[in-house]
């Protein structure tokens, strides 16, 4: 069993992700998501403005100019 994420040796709030039987595998992506999880859960800071984080993610994941989205044959419309 390999522990691939530890937020801080001192922090009791570490979310740990284990992958039994795959100790040698490169799992940077999994490590990153678990490292970020506690940073993502605090109360928002003070602003009275437009929170752009969903818009940024949307524009990053979907090119609004090309609308290059893979169609799923037979997928229901939402």
């Amino acid at each position: 069993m390999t522990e691939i994420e530890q937020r801080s040796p001192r922090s009791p709030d570490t979310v740990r992700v284990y992958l039994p039987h795959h100790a040698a595998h490169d799992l940077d992506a999994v490590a990153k998501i678990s490292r970020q999880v506690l940073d993502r859960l605090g109360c928002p800071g003070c602003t009275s403005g437009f929170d752009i984080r969903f818009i940024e993610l949307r524009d990053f994941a979907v090119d609004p100019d090309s609308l290059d989205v893979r169609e799923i044959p037979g997928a229901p419309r939402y």
Partner: protein
Amino acid sequence: MHRDTDGSVLGVGMVYCPALGPVFEAGPDVVAVAELEPQTLWRTVCSEGKWRYRVDGWALDAVAVLPQRKLVHGVGQPLAGSIDDPLDYRTPLRGVVDLLDPPWVSEHLSFVRTAGASGIEHAGFLLPPAQTPEQVAVAAENIDDYRRVVGRPVAFETGVDYRAPREDELDDGVFFRDVAARSGSGIVLDLHNLWCNEVNGRGAVRDVLSRIPLDRVWEVHVAGGDDLDGYRLDAHSGAVPGELLDLTADVVPRLPNLRALTFEIMPSHVPHLGLDGVHAQLERLWQIWDLRPDAAPEPFPTAIATRASAAERATVHRAERNLVAALRGSELAEPGVLLYRRLVDEQRRAHLAQALRYTTTALLTTLGAAATEAVIAEHLSAHPPEMTPGVEGYRFATYLASRPGLIDAVPHLRQVLEFETALLRAALFGTSTVVEWDVDPAGVLDALDEGRAPGVLEPQSYSVSVEI
């Protein structure tokens, strides 16, 4: 070389976020004050069915060791509300104050909770109070209580209000003046908020300044903003506009008890301004800071113990519920209320992008933006806001899990959702989960990190254990 600061006169500061770490590490001559919004380091956790705040002690310690003096600026228990936070915030708040030793503590003159048939609900956004004599009484009592919690002088922040002014309410300056007078509090003069109010059709900044007691201003906040739907937004989105810097330079010499001048920027906007841009803002603010009066400030005013009547509190709560009902409704409302609706929804969508980044990306890359937004909108309309991104994300994850047709339509969504739900479950409930993958999880997450759908991957069996 900047003027030395000591005692309660602190100098130029900046709201703390980790992205600004290099600027703070440059030392007090560059930025003299680290202002912490303590609730950004709190998360809600649940054990044995009871929710409470848990402070990220590791992150808090990182703030405590910064070389700057500290200020504490609350963003979770605003001072105008008639409904108190049902969770014990007093213990963690007092702990933060004891650790950081700020000369005063500030919070917003807003509300964020209402009580209804289903219990206490979060409004999803700091909302403006009705500016009535009853609200003055409730705010003053809240300030008195807050002062007892933190054991320090308390200041309220002059807020932004996107609604049109009402003839049956006090004007902005009179409202701020009356709250300060009844409570004996200080004022955080947020000039960007007041400037937004003026641009959006409320009172002119100079009129507000002519009515408030300028000797109660202990701190000035400045920030940048954006335009949306014809409104100027207090978005903390970058550089302070030159016009507002000029206004700040005009105002600072009139503030005999000014102790800090603070620049606010949201973490998500730091990359756009850049650290060099932040340094340039601070340099300009130090120049303005040197315009303050030479005389030493007066001592903090004497606290005033005050209570609101039950009738006053009930009147305030009715106004709060009316505004929240207008925000949750779909009927036509005044443009300012429609803007608040949009801001609340966008903040909730941002929380989902924050807490469920990979799930949200999987939806976007496969369904596209419009269909993903429709799924989220359906969830938002059916569920009231939650107070933290983690709980909002967990509720949305639960909602998605009840839509098997949707999950089956998005390749790998089932495992991505289960994995992120497991992370949230560990963080919120302290519960361990094993997630079974039928492909390499790193391949899926790498693709989503790049903003693309993972595509077809070679079948492999992985068991991932998520623990805390």
